[in-house]
């Protein structure tokens, strides 16, 4: 975590801040969702409590805290209470592995009578050179919180909903895994930061052995992999049980699926897990297909650095990191809005249509995308 006290504390604070960012996202997104749904059905969303209904979030939080604490009689108490806590872990671990901006390099400085050496703080919780495999491994643990919730509440509808939800999650994990193969073929690396640096330059690709560079167009992944982007987005909708894939929670006889018996703050923790997964999904979309924290001609690390050239070295690099962080957050918020937007436009799938879509359409499409990408890259990159 770092070799001296200052670095360790900064790294720890960084992780905690990213976790709290995810936790704070829930009330914000719930508010956005209720307002947007109201706007789409041309009625007013929550606007009684405070300006534009913003303090509705506080009212909800208080309501969640003071709800009656309840656990079903013959259920397994430990699993019933453990399931919401387990729901938080996968989303946080995945979110901390994704770089939100360029690293900050801090020159050595004098403080409290001790010179603290030069540091490089990465704008993420931790950096693994097997970034993609780590995120896939951690997000595959999400099925356990559903299963434990279903088993812990000893309610046969909850159990049935949990089984359906986890069957859906794992079958769409296949399509997600395959659409990542297309990206790997293109960038040939697992680590996120190398993918982002590869996308921050001008559009340059091999054309029958020669390299062609198009000056003004950014080198984003969406240009090479449009089908992969659509597949990853659809798989992410199913992964987070969002509409139009939220069947396990919303069927007539399933009441509310695996969190039927939950109420109050425990239900809220499931929402934190779900919105956390949505944040990870939009962050992955932005990192793979929309160039991470850079927009080539205007907002690349060196052009933004030039804006703050007259400040000192450290402050300049901090400012550029935060400007690019704002760019990244803007892109992520667009995709979060896309999640909310789709929720109130598309109808829900039937369960067999949902599983057929996962196995019989998305998996073959992802395979086709992988094969076509491999063949095209082979033709383009070998020196004929």
């Amino acid at each position, binding site marked *: 975590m770092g070799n001296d006290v200052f670095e360790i504390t900064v790294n*720890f604070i960084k992780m905690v801040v990213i976790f709290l960012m995810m936790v704070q996202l829930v009330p914000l997104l719930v508010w956005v969702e209720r307002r947007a749904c109201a706007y789409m059905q041309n009625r007013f969303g929550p606007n009684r409590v405070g300006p534009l209904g913003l303090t509705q979030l506080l009212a909800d939080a208080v309501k969640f805290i003071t709800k009656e*604490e309840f656990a079903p009689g013959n259920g397994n108490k430990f699993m019933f209470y453990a399931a919401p806590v387990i729901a938080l872990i996968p989303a946080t671990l995945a979110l901390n592995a994704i770089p939100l901006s360029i690293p900050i390099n801090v020159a050595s400085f004098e403080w409290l009578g001790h010179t603290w050496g030069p540091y490089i703080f990465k704008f993420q919780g931790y950096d693994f050179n097997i970034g993609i495999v780590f995120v896939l491994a951690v997000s595959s643990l999400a099925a356990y919180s559903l299963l434990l919730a279903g088993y812990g509440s000893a309610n*046969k509808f909850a159990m049935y909903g949990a089984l359906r939800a986890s069957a859906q999650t794992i079958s769409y994990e296949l399509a997600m895994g395959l659409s990542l193969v297309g990206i790997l073929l293109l960038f*040939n690396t697992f680590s996120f930061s190398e993918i982002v640096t590869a996308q921050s330059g001008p559009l340059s690709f091999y054309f029958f052995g020669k390299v062609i560079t198009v000056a003004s167009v950014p080198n984003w992944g969406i240009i090479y992999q449009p089908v992969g982007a659509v597949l990853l987005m659809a798989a992410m909708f199913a992964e987070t049980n969002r509409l139009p894939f939220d069947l396990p929670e919303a069927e007539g006889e399933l009441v509310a699926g695996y969190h039927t018996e939950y109420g109050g703050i425990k239900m809220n923790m499931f929402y934190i897990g779900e919105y956390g997964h949505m944040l990870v999904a939009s962050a992955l979309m932005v990192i793979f297909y929309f160039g991470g924290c850079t927009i080539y001609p205007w907002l690349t690390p060196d052009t933004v650095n030039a804006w703050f050239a007259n400040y000192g070295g450290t402050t300049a690099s901090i400012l550029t990191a935060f400007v690019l962080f704002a760019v990244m957050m803007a892109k992520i918020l667009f995709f979060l809005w896309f999640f909310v937007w789709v929720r109130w436009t598309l109808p829900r799938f039937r369960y067999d249509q949902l599983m057929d879509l996962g*196995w019989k359409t998305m998996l073959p499409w992802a395979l086709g995308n992988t094969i076509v990408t491999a063949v095209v890259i082979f033709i383009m990159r070998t020196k004929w």
Partner: protein
Amino acid sequence: MSQLVPVFVLSIFVVVFGIIIEIVANICSTAGKKTSTKLESYECGLPSDQSGPTRIPIKFYLTAILFILFDIEIIFMYPWALTYGDFISSGLGAYILGSMGFFLLVFIFGLFWEVKSKALEWE
């Protein structure tokens, strides 16, 4: 080892955070009477006739098994995709594409057979 310490520290922090939230909610929640009807599992008001989980269609396990098998085939593709550029630049492009082509052929045939044999049919 030092690379994994942040992951352990973060997961411990999240678990402690979750437990603290549940304790806080437990303390300041209004204490309702634990009547027997309230403790029964929620079935929209109908008195639940069986106790605990009952007959649930078993066809979920087939999806889970097929998921494992196809997941492993996808994981075999990750090292291929990782070193695809190196193989092409070192002139072995046709070799790696051919070998992976056979593997993908087997994968596609397996998937095609699963679809055709209606193993994944949900009535």
